[in-house]
C-alpha cells in the first residue's frame, strides 16, 4: 500500500504532508504527557517487529498479494499515540533507507498507515471491547480488518484524485477498498493472534485490555 513517487499530483502530496505533520505534532504533544520511560524499549521492539513483519510478503498465488501493515497491533499494544509514532518511524525508515514509498508520498503514506490505520483500529477495538463487551479475539480481528481497509480506501482517494490515475476515484476507491477488505481478513487474523498471545502471557503490556 506504499504509494511511490509519481502516483500523486504535487498538490495532493503537499496537502497530505501538511496534514500528517499537523497530526504528528499533536500526537507528539500527547506522547510527551503519556510517555512512561520504562516502556520505551518495548515500544522500540514493537516498532522493529512491525518493520520486519512488513518485509514478509504473503505469497498468495493468483496475482494479488499483500503484507502485514501492523497499525492495529501497534494501536492495541501501545495505544493510539505511541502506536502512531511507532508506525511513522517504520514508514520513515522504509522511505529513507529502502526507497519503499516515495519521498513525496511520505505524507500520504504516514496519513494512511500511521494515522488512519492506527486511530481507526484503536477506536474499533475500544468500541467493541468496552461498549459491546466483545471478546479480545473478535475486537482485535475487527480492528486489524477495519484499520487496513480504511487506510486502503484513503490511498484509493489520494490516487483517484491524481492525474496519473486519470482522476478515476470511482474505480480506485472500490478496487483498493474491496481488495484490502479481503486481504484485511489475514491482517485481522494476525492481529488477533498477536494480541491474544500478549494477552495470555503479559496482559499488563496491552494499552487497553
Amino acid at each position, binding site marked *: *500500500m506504499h*504509494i*511511490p*513517487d*509519481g*502516483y500523486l499530483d504535487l498538490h495532493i502530496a503537499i496537502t497530505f504532508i501538511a496534514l500528517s505533520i499537523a497530526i504528528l505534532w499533536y500526537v*507528539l504533544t500527547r*506522547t*510527551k*504527557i503519556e*510517555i512512561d*520511560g*520504562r*516502556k*520505551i*524499549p*518495548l*515500544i*522500540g*521492539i514493537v*516498532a*522493529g*517487529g512491525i*518493520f*520486519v*513483519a512488513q*518485509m*514478509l*510478503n*504473503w*505469497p*498468495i498465488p493468483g*496475482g*494479488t*498479494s*499483500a503484507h502485514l501493515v501492523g497499525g492495529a497491533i501497534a494501536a492495541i499494544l501501545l495505544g493510539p499515540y505511541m502506536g502512531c*509514532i511507532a508506525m511513522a*518511524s*517504520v514508514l520513515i*525508515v522504509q*522511505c*529513507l*533507507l*529502502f*526507497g*519503499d514509498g*516515495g519521498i513525496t508520498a511520505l505524507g500520504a503514506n504516514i496519513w494512511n498507515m500511521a494515522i488512519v490505520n492506527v486511530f481507526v483500529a484503536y477506536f474499533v477495538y475500544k468500541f467493541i471491547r468496552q461498549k459491546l463487551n466483545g471478546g479480545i479475539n473478535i475486537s482485535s480481528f475487527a480492528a486489524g480488518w477495519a484499520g487496513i481497509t480504511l487506510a*486502503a480506501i484513503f*490511498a484509493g482517494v489520494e*490516487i483517484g484524485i491524481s492525474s*496519473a*490515475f486519470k482522476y*478515476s476515484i470511482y*474505480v480506485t476507491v472500490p*478496487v*483498493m477498498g474491496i481488495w484490502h477488505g479481503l*486481504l484485511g481478513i489475514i491482517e485481522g487474523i494476525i492481529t488477533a493472534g498477536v494480541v491474544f498471545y500478549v494477552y495470555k*502471557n*503479559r496482559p499488563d*503490556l496491552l494499552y487497553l485490555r
Partner: protein
Amino acid sequence: MKISEIKSYLSKRSLIILLVLIVATPLFAYAAEIVGYSEPLENLAEEFGAEENPLYHGLFPDYTIPGVDPYIGTIISAVVGTLVTIILIVLILKAMLRGKTNGPNT
C-alpha cells in the same frame, strides 16, 4: 530508570521472535518471487498506466544491496532496518521524556 524495570517490559522471548522474523525474510522474498507478488495498488497502476517516478532510491533500494546476492541483501536489510527503526523511535521517545521531566507543566 532501573535496568530491572526495563527488563520487566522486555522479555528474551520478544527478542527471539524478532530474530525469527528477520531470518524468515529471505524465505518470504523467495516465495513472493515464485508466485509473482503484486499488490492491489500496483495492479491498479498497471491498469491506468500510472508510472513510478522515483526521486530517491534509498541506501538499500528495494531492500537489496547493490552488488550483493539479493537474499543476503534482504537479510542484511532486515537487520539494518530493524535496528535503525528501534534506534529512531527510542531517540524520539527519549526526547519526549526529557520534554516531560523538564517541561513547564511539571
